[in-house]
């Protein structure tokens, strides 16, 4: 069995005295898409923050590509291939699409290469390249966020609530793009509430409730038991 690109072992994390993660165990195989599902307040976003170095776990281990990662800063992780697309897209609304993309060239990538990557995945962004990002639709903003992340050549992509506030058709379109990214060899951990959409592109799935991973397996297996799990069957 090959070394997984991400392995979370018995991770605990808390906001103050409130413990949010209560011993999370999770593995993302190399080149696979893992859909992390679960209700609000399950600790999914907190787990992404811990993995990306934005939050310190209280105990437990995080291994990336067989290396124990401890006290790593988010920017160090980003430079070495861990890219996070946070919940709410976080684009610069008062900058144009091109300016938003141009910011990624500060990481050392040539502007031409940044534009080429972004527009090849999302041609619509080329049409809107001179438009202020804040005036675009939610789906287009999410595309911009995805494109911005892809220009950093990620090896492991953490996607948090890609579908938040978007119409189902737009969500499907976005997930088609995510599937294309995965086919190019990028490992993806996607946190999602819209289970069916995420499971369509996922290789594996896990369900989190109450700060713990309560079920893992193939997407079809998880889909069959998810309702029971989330509604308290296995939690």
């Amino acid at each position: 069995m090959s070394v997984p690109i991400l392995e979370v072992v018995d991770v605990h994390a808390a906001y103050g005295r409130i413990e949010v993660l209560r011993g999370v165990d999770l593995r993302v195989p190399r080149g696979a898409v893992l859909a992390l599902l679960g209700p609000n307040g399950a600790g999914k976003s907190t787990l992404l923050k811990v993995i990306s170095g934005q939050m310190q776990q209280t105990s437990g281990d995080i291994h990336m590509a067989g290396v124990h990662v401890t006290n790593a800063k988010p920017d160090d992780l980003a430079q070495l291939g861990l890219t996070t697309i946070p919940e709410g897209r976080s684009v610069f609304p008062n900058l144009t699409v091109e300016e938003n993309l141009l910011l990624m060239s500060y990481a050392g990538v040539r502007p031409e290469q940044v534009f080429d990557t972004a527009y090849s995945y999302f041609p619509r962004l080329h049409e809107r390249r001179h438009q202020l990002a804040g005036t675009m639709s939610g789906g287009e903003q999410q595309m911009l966020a995805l494109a911005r992340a892809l220009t950093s050549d990620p090896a492991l992509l953490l996607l948090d609530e890609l579908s938040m506030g978007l119409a189902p058709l737009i969500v499907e379109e976005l997930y088609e793009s995510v599937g294309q990214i995965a086919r190019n060899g990028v490992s993806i951990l996607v946190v999602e509430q819209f289970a069916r959409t995420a499971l369509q592109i996922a290789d594996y799935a896990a369900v989190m409730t109450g700060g713990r991973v309560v079920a893992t397996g193939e997407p079809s297996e998880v889909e069959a038991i998810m309702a029971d799990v989330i509604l308290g069957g296995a939690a």
Partner: protein
Amino acid sequence: MSCRQCGQGSDTMSDGRTPGERTLYDRTLLRRLRATSRRSRRTAVGVLALGLVIGSAGVALGPAQAMAPATSYGGFSTAATASPLKLEVFEPSIPIPTEPQFEMDFSYTRVLGDSGPSTSARASAMWPGPAIGEGLKTFGEQLGLPSQLTGGGYPVQVNSQFPGDPSQAASEPFPGMVQRVNATEKKTTAKAGYTGSGDLAEGDSGDGSATPAPNPLDGLSKGDFSGLGSALTGAKSGSNEDPTQTNPMGALSMLIDFDGMTSVSSTTYDDDQVVSTATSRIGELRLLLGMIKLTGVNVVTKVTSSIDGGAKTSQVVDVGGMTIAGQKFSYGPDGFTAAGSTTPVPGMPSQASDLLKMLGVQIEVPKPVVTADGGTGKVDAEAVRITIDTKPLRANLPSLPLDDLVSQLPDMGQANVLKGLLLSLNTFAPTLVLHLGQASAAATTVPNFDVGGSDAPSAGAGTAGAAGAAAPGAAGAAGVGAPGEVPPAAAGASTVSTPLKQVSGVPGLPPLGSVPGMLMMLGILLAAGAGWYLRRAGGLLFGAGATCAHGLKAGIPDLRKA
């Protein structure tokens, strides 16, 4: 412009910050200072905890150190071993890596004692020596025997120990063959032999110190009939100090009692002396509660050791004799003994000796080996030693045609081992040594060990002149140097008062605050540091040097290249 030193000036600084606002550099510096402070606090807490542990250990050990021994000696060691009949076989062709290759002690007893007291006793009707007796399980494993046969160790033995379990054990492998052991704080006894009374009398050690066994009928003269009733019914009550024994002959043993091949080993520990006694007897018939005793071989060795009196040894070696009302009639290595006087006897006729020698048989009446040096004493005695060398007999027998038969076996694998064994039969001529009435006793006492120097002479009131005047006994009791040793008085020495410090004579941890105590604490700290370093080094060596419990190296990987 504002002043960066005093913080006074306008509300806005040159870089656009307000006076209370911190730069990124300030925040980083502050975070590092906080981290350093946290680490310092953790280190301080760790050192404090270590100090508390060591301190509490010292406090906990304090009372033990303060305990003074109730005995006049600081330590002792005793050993008593007895075996009425011991057979040794010396034959190098027997594939047992011991010397002798085979031995068997009949009615074997052994008692060991050490300071504490920590004692052990063993009794075995047939003891095959330590090689087989202790290592039967190993022999069984090597020979491929079922573990049920040898897993429980050598079966014909009982053992006891103090402190520990069992403190008392008894067994009778066959009716009349008794094995008894009993270990207490003051006395440890092992008995083995063949008797009809269920217990073996320890007997008289021969130095007049033994107290006669209580006669159950003594109470009759005082009008107490309970002893007679108990004797007739066989009812008894005992304790760990005086364990109850079964009596197959019941009240009949008052009239006729017998011991076959018996041995009794015992050690006692009093406050001022320790005694080790070993007794071997072969054949004893007692009539009328022992008023008339007929004995075959009776060997008793005894060592009494104390600080004041040193080691005193005694031994009795009787070969055939009769005792009537305490009056002994016997034959021993020094001749006939009757009415307290010994008469030498002429040696064995030379013709008979020569005849036995020609047959390879040698009979010796060994002299007891006695050593006594200060508080250490040891007596080894045996009644008769018979050595049978079978080589002269073997030389007169025709050789079996084994060589021709064995040569027919094929030269392959296991057959070569078998051939070697069969061929060795032609050279098989063991030497047999029979020891009759073997008994060995040893005892040692040592004075209290005084770590802090001399506090003697106690009667000297702190003056050197008075020290010279102290009695030798007083100096010996002080526990410094050999018993009776007195430091020489300096002629004309002035009375210089030297403050004497009372220290405990018990070995233990030195008091906290003293130089030895600090050295010990330094040693503990160094050991802890060395342990931490070795653990860390071992972890690095085996890939577990990182903080990860899963043995992975720590760091930040390049995920694109991984």
